[in-house]
């Protein structure tokens, strides 16, 4: 060992708002835009619809409805993030949701299974479908686009077979409540406060420990800004959802956080931890970033591929239950029509790259909200489906362009 060294240090606890802002701008300019376009787009949409339809769009009733409308698509999108991270696609995710919901409904309604068992069977149906996709893609090397395009058609047939001649099947009371009932107002507040407190404490303790060890850490100011921002968003949402939103409150009162929102947030938390805190999650990003490098580093690339398809389809099955719940049962279009396109759109609009290696579960959440606001707002403006489709299609195209352009900038500035 020779020369004394100047050690690597990037702990900067003395940052102020100015330097933080500068760092952030540099990151954006470098092409690392994350969810920013989606958040800005969301703000623009919300403001626009609030001005155009002040009497309906801003109503608490509509806000609660919007969450329940979009719950299924958003959850399918969260599952899709896993295959998109590998640079793969699952075009059958929508019908996977439909088939899984149909299995649960048939078992509940026609065979009188217990609710928990029927739900488990539905979820395992998703897992089995994911295993099927994953094995074909990883073992036979057939592009996922082709594999899932085929099963997209096949599962449509399976769905029709399952629901039988009547064209629809009831999902039972429990499923119906999942995406229509609300929590008591007080419980919504408890969960909201608990989430903010947990975030604040965990990140603060983490930062302090890392700073003590001389590792990279978030400046306290950034921590405070993030925690404050999160608190404002969560408390506003809970407050808004705690307002009486039933048009006939004397007959049936509707207030409180929808159960579906709790399911979405809980699922997003679990999936995010898996992706960002486990070895498996690191391997998913590695395979998505450079498959050959991952292989040479001893990562079992085929196992990672299989696991991501498993995850995608299992999560899609959860989404299917929410879809069935919203429409009161499973019919021939549950998980069909635009479900898949909206879900892929949600993930991509939120900032997940179609090229693999970049994306987060929360992207699907943000993107899903954008898609939901467009659908909901256009619906309130009495626009025909034709225009809704055109607008959503264009928004998806814009999102994909943002992805491609930021990628190019990232390559140029070396931040890919």
């Amino acid at each position, binding site marked *: *060992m*020779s*020369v004394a*060294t*100047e*050690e*690597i240090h*990037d702990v900067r606890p003395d940052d102020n708002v100015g330097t933080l802002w500068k760092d952030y701008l540099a990151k954006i300019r*470098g092409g690392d835009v994350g969810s920013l376009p989606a958040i800005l787009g969301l703000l623009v949409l919300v403001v626009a619809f609030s001005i155009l339809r002040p009497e309906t769009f801003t109503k608490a009733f509509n806000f609660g409805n919007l969450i329940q409308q979009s719950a299924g698509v958003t959850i399918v999108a969260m599952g899709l993030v896993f295959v998109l991270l590998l640079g793969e696609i699952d075009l059958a995710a929508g019908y996977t949701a439909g088939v899984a919901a149909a299995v649960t409904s048939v078992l509940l309604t026609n065979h009188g299974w217990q609710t928990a068992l029927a739900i488990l069977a539905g979820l395992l149906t998703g897992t089995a479908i994911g295993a099927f996709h994953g094995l074909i893609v990883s073992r036979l090397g057939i592009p996922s686009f082709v594999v899932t395009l085929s099963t997209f058609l096949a599962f449509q047939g399976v769905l029709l077979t399952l629901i039988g001649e009547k064209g629809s099947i009831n999902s039972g009371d429990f499923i119906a409540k999942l995406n229509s009932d609300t929590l008591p107002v007080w419980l919504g507040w408890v969960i909201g406060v608990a989430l903010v407190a947990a975030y604040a404490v965990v990140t603060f303790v983490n930062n302090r*420990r*890392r700073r003590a*060890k*001389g*590792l*990279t850490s978030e400046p306290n100011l950034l921590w405070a800004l993030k925690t404050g921002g999160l608190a404002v968003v969560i408390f506003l949402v809970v407050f808004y959802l705690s307002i009486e939103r039933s048009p006939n409150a004397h007959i049936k009162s509707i207030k409180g956080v929808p159960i579906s929102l709790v399911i979405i947030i809980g699922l997003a938390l679990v999936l995010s931890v898996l992706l960002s*805190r*486990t*070895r498996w*999650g*690191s*391997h998913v*990003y*590695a395979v*998505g*970033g*450079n498959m*050959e*490098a*991952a292989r*040479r*580093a*001893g*990562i079992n690339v085929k196992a990672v591929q299989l696991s991501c398809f498993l995850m995608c389809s299992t999560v899609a099955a959860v989404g299917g239950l929410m879809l069935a719940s919203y429409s009161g049962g499973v019919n021939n279009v549950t998980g069909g029509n635009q479900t898949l396109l909206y879900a892929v759109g949600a993930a991509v609009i939120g900032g997940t790259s179609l090229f693999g*290696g*970049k994306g987060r579960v929360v992207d699907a959440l943000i993107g899903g909200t954008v898609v939901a606001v467009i659908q909901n707002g256009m619906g309130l403006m009495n626009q025909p489906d034709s225009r809704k489709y055109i607008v959503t299609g264009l928004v998806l195209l814009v999102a994909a362009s943002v992805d491609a352009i930021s990628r190019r900038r*990232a*390559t140029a*500035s*070396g*931040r*890919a």
Partner: protein
Amino acid sequence: MSSGEPLLELRGVQKTFGAVHVLRGVDLTVRPGRVTALVGDNGAGKSTLIKGIAGIYPFDEGEYTFEGRAVHVKSPRDANALGIEVVYQDLALCDNLDVVHNMYLGRELTKNGFVDEDAMESRARETLDGLSVRTLKSVRTRVASLSGGQRQTVAIARAVLWNSKLVILDEPTAALGVAQTEQVLKLVRRLADRGLGVVLISHNLNDVFEVADDIAVLYLGQMVAQVEAASTTRDRIVTAITTGELTRGDAA
């Protein structure tokens, strides 16, 4: 040659791909604490030789001795277990991951089932500091935003992170500018100064003479000679590479 016992000794290794006899009885000695440059024209068999050492294409015949013991290296895993790491020309880094995660690619440390970011970050930083790497601002930078020299540094640091004994570098300076080449060569030197055996493949004789202690010349699958860098000249090595003859004494 000094520095005690050889770390790696190959005697009479042979390798055939179908009808092509690529290695025809090659001898190679690598000693700890020394940089052994492996030179030779395209097709001389350099890549096949290191792939044999790394267990990617095991040798057909010949003795393979590591730390004085005869060993059988039949897969990259065998080589890794002995403490042999290869830094490939195309680096094999993941652009979307940061320096820490690249250094631990496929071998992430865990604690209670979760990735132990703290331990990984401090050990990655220690390793880089230990190699006197001063060109990286943060170990949390994504590799995509690094220069060619910095990427090469990360790839080399990854190889030494695992208490490796022999590091094989395939053309580490091929794509680099002057200043970056200088940085990487210094790093190569430091590896040897830490007592590791280093095999450096290079086409650039300037680099070879700057950093190597020993030079091994391959010509059409045969080892022309392995000599100390100090005892020979550039011109003699060029002649050896092109003709397969190493002249002694007063060559131009």
